[in-house]
């Protein structure tokens, strides 16, 4: 605006009335009439101590929403929302369109940052008691914004139409199918048909590009509108209670006795943080690059290990650790109850203490949830419960385990490899982690227990009784019997002394009379 000073036809020489810029501004303002509202929003007083770095997460989430919309539109210029072509168009974005990879990376990392910032914002709002009167509806809209953010993350993962997206949809369909009575119909609605196919991608595209972002924009504007109208939550002071009857007056008094204008007093920190977040997204995008796409979405390629994106790993972990019969009740009850509790929170705790110093349960809950989430996510990144599908053919046995071994023991080592035991059991640090490591298995189980375990399975181990011949079982057990540290003898059954001793003469002599056999356990 200030740069628009060169006026046509020498009118600027008169310089009496307002300049061109001012006149253009006035022309627009007469029609838009925004100045009053904008000034009011910008200059409304906020409590001085809310100009804090703790209050920057909401505006950062808002900024990220617009980054996602902007980069999303740019990607939509190239992306083809067709099951047959989506994967190819993503690869063209990655490799052929100049800086297409960068925009995909910005969008992907923007999504990660957005989920993280929204969660932090929510935790901060909860700990600062900002959901209490009169900001209940702001909180409720915020809960829906969180759900939609997660919805965008999931639908976005589907639009990256690769193997993970395909099988992720399968996991989603399997979860939906557990809903009683209407599960089958809901699966068809979710997939747009009987299987994951073109119709599925089309409807997820519509959800990701129109339905959810449209609702999100509306909700986000209402959310911000209420922040402006109701004022930024005052810094919680221990002992300063929220009461419906007096709060508005107290807040008004606070902002007018110890308040500063929202701009620039508080807003500069929002600006700095938003800028820093945008820069961080860009740095991550440049350093780590875009997400996928992984293999083609061809369901007949089964050599794949599907895994959800980062923010859903915790669910993936829970579904591994829950007892099988608990899963369906968990999936159907817990998410809905969690959402219901979040929505109901401002109604049963709408008044009273705001400060976290006087709300130990709130602090405990946030820290418990945060730690659990962290642990579950960490487990989800390593997936110790997943068999390593290629360990049996790819992971070598440590040489010292078969060096100097008898032919029977070596045969047992071959059986161990060939029967995929290594997919779940590690030796020497390589192999699956589904079952216990076998490095010292002989110190834990006696020969008989080993044989029993191999034949009958139990716990998380399948029974190998029908899949191994007796000679293979013998060989395998004699190999397992050698798996113990040099300084630690293998476990033995004390009663074997008696049994072994009795065997040569079990028909004639009673066991107590027989001499101990020298060859068995020490």
């Amino acid at each position, binding site marked *: 605006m200030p740069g628009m000073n060169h006026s046509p036809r020498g009118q600027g020489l008169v310089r009496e009335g307002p300049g061109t810029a001012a006149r253009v501004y006035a022309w627009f*303002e007469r029609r838009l*009439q925004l*100045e*009053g509202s904008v*000034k*009011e929003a910008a200059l409304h007083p906020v409590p001085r101590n809310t100009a804090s770095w703790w209050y920057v997460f909401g505006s950062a989430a808002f900024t990220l929403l617009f980054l996602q919309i902007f980069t999303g539109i740019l990607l939509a210029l190239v992306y083809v929302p*067709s*099951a*047959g*072509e989506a994967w190819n168009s993503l690869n063209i974005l990655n490799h052929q369109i100049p800086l297409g990879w960068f925009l995909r990376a910005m969008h992907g990392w923007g999504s990660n940052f957005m989920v993280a910032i929204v969660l932090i914002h929510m935790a901060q709002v909860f700990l600062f008691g900002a959901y209490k009167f009169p900001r209940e509806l702001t909180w409720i809209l915020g809960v829906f914004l969180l759900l939609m953010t997660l919805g965008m993350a999931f639908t976005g993962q589907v639009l990256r139409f690769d193997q993970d997206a395909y*099988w992720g949809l*399968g*996991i989603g*369909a*399997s979860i939906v199918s*557990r809903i009683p009575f209407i*599960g*089958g119909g809901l*699966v*068809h*609605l979710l*997939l*747009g*048909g*009987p*299987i994951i*196919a*073109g*119709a*599925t991608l089309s409807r997820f595209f519509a959800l990701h590009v129109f339905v959810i972002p449209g609702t999100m924009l509306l909700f986000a504007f209402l959310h911000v509108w209420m922040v402006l109208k109701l004022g930024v939550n005052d810094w919680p002071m221990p002992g300063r209670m929220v009461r419906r009857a007096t709060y508005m007056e107290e807040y008004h008094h606070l902002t007018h006795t110890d308040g500063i204008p929202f701009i620039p007093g508080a807003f500069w920190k929002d600006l700095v943080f938003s800028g820093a977040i945008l820069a961080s997204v860009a740095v991550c995008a440049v350093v780590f690059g875009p997400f996928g796409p992984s293999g083609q*979405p061809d*369901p*007949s390629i*089964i*050599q*794949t*290990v*599907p895994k959800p994106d980062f923010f859903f790993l915790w669910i993936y972990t829970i*579904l*591994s650790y*829950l007892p*099988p*019969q608990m*899963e369906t009740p968990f999936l159907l009850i817990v998410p809905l109850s969690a959402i219901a509790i979040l929505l109901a929170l401002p109604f049963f705790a709408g008044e009273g203490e705001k400060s976290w110093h006087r709300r130990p349960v709130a602090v405990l809950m946030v820290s418990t949830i945060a730690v659990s989430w962290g642990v579950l996510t960490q487990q989800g990144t390593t997936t110790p*419960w*997943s*068999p390593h599908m290629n360990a*049996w053919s790819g992971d070598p046995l440590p040489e010292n385990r078969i060096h100097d071994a008898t032919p029977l023991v070596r045969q047992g080592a071959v059986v161990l490899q060939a029967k*995929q035991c290594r*997919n779940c059991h590690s030796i020497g640090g390589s192999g699956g982690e589904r079952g216990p490591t076998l490095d010292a298995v002989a110190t834990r189980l006696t020969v008989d227990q080993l044989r029993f375990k191999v034949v*009958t*399975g*139990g*716990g*998380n181990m*399948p*029974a190998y*009784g*029908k*899949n191994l011949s007796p000679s293979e079982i013998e060989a395998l057990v004699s190999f397992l019997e050698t798996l113990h540290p040099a300084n630690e003898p293998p476990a033995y059954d004390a009663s074997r002394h008696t049994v072994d001793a009795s065997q040569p003469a079990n028909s004639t002599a009673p066991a107590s009379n027989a001499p101990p056999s020298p060859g068995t356990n020490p």
Partner: protein
Amino acid sequence: MTNETQSASPKPTPSGANTVAAPDGPRIVSRRWLLFKAAIALNGLVGLVLTVPVLRYLLAPWKKDASFNSWTSLGPVDAFPIGETRLARYVNPSQNPWDGQTDDIACYVRRESGSQFKVFAINCAHLGCPVRWFPQSQLFMCPCHGGVYYADGSRASGPPERGLFTYSWQIVSGELQIDAGQMPTLSNSAKLVTISTGPGDCRCQG
């Protein structure tokens, strides 16, 4: 707060409406309200009528299982050796030209004898991940959460609560056909394998 707006624009006399429309007597006003309510009702009615086709359109995929399924060939019977389990592929019977490769569905065929088959879905009964067949140990293993099934499809270990989903099959003029068409899940007619504790499994283990 909004009333205090100090607008720079000329005041449009906000209370002007009342003074100009002075002749609004109570009867006229109530007639306007009646018309207004009638207009709302009209729109409500139109909206309601329009909801029907919209819902019908949205619920189009909500069909009975049978409407998706049809007999699909897996190829000649001889392609499946007796006593072995083989990966087979078919093209899903209901398809659109823009489906790409998503219509190529895999399944496992186990030929138990000359005329006896079992056809298993590729999807783990836990969360639908693709299970892999290991002929050496005669086990199906799932890469996601470690569900394991025996060769006959029954559950061996891990989180699945049941055995693998199976397809109905028939032999027509030397070809193995299966009743396919939809992703098998716990809620549709994917045929139940008898849930057994599995061969060799022993309850006394605890």
